[in-house]
């Protein structure tokens, strides 16, 4: 039984049919990378998985939590979101809270953890991303790469079953990209289930178990990344990887 599964997922923006029947299964411990041109629906697909974008048809199931068109109320969404962590392109740290408070906030208000519990978890997660010494710093005192690592720690502190990464290195200066990718690489090696949208093709090839190529709102081609890059099955994907170089 897959950890994450979607079926018949449809999404419209007005008349624009951006997701046209997505079926995607992700096993526990799998690293899945979604690629495609801008406008292909890849970010939208990622954002529907935890209900940031509503869906117009279909089902999403994550570790027993289920969301469909008729069941998308606040409680359903929160149950789903307890299973899913998300990291954004723009970090979205809470600027009025220190790094430690950023990581501890959700364990405090959502999981009702005690002071000692949540501080322990926050310190653990921050050392996991190599930022234990920044516990009392504020987000604006950190580099972009450090902020993104804090955002990862913040997501991990809720012990999600799966982590969504939405172009998490796209807003970073080139010299800061690797420190973030290294954290993701380590998470993948530790068996974390990851679903990412990225433009870092080399990285995607290296860490992904499965590559998903989106084209015009559909999963156009999917498979093992090495094989897909070596032998693209569709002209659209061949065209896409051709345009990268």
């Amino acid at each position: 039984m897959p950890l994450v599964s979607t079926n018949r997922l449809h999404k419209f923006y007005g008349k624009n049919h951006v997701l046209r029947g997505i079926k995607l299964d992700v096993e526990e411990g799998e690293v899945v990378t979604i690629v495609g041109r801008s406008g292909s629906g890849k970010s939208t697909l990622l954002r529907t998985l935890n209900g940031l974008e509503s869906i117009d048809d279909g089902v999403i199931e994550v570790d027993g939590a289920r969301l469909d068109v008729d069941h998308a109320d606040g409680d359903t969404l929160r149950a789903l979101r307890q299973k899913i962590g998300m990291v954004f392109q723009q970090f979205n740290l809470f600027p009025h809270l220190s790094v430690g408070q950023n990581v501890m906030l959700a364990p405090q208000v959502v999981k009702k953890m005690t002071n000692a519990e949540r501080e322990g978890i926050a310190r653990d997660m921050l050392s996991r991303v190599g930022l234990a010494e920044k516990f009392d710093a504020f987000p604006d005192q950190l580099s972009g790469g450090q902020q993104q690592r804090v955002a990862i720690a913040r997501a991990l502190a809720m012990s999600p079953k799966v982590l969504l990464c939405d172009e998490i290195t796209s807003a970073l200066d080139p010299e800061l990209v690797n420190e973030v990718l290294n954290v993701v690489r380590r998470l993948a090696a530790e068996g974390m289930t990851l679903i990412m949208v990225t433009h870092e093709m080399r990285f995607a090839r290296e860490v992904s178990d499965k590559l998903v190529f989106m084209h015009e709102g559909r999963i156009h081609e999917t498979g093992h990344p090495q094989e897909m890059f070596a032998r693209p099955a569709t002209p659209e994907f061949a065209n896409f990887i051709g345009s990268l170089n």
Partner: protein
Amino acid sequence: MISFSLWDIVRNLAIGGALTLLLSLVAFVLGGAAGLLVLFARIGKWRVPRAMAQMHIELFQGTPLLLQLFTLFFGLSLFGLDMPAWLAAALGLTLFTSAFLAEIWRGCVEAVPKGQWEASACLAMSYGEQMRHVILPQAMRLAVAPTVGFAVQVVKGTAVTSIIGFAELTKTGSMIANATFQPFLVYSLVALAYFVLCYPLSHYAQSLERKLHAAR
């Protein structure tokens, strides 16, 4: 003929000034509390309270304060509701203030980036938790300077209540001017008194704006 010393004038103006200050405080505190309720109705997800809040804001922003006071003071007495001037003044200014503060604060809540809503939603927080821990603390920081700035408008707005006979600073001034035949002196003193009340506030608003924009 009775003669008035400068001391007589100043002493009486001081009483009017105290009432202006009191009325401003009442309007600002009660208006702020009511404004908070209007704000939550206005930005909340329930349709009916949202529409009512919007009507409240548009009504009190879209009509002159003077007419709001006339309606309360003269209008309600037609229905047998006899309202003393001080009550009509306090009530009118409170309603006026609540509409403006709600709208100022709504702007501040909406100025908090969408990513803050998304990030907190992804951490499985409820609407109330998001508001309390993530959105409002940031909106409040943005709101401080314009709120203090609006307090200046409230102080000056109290002058309008002189028309319905509330003996605040302006009304006291006009009575003294009529009695002393020294309108230039008296009204200059009245203007000076308003300046003494308002200048520190607007100065404070400016320094807050500088400070809070530089800080995180």
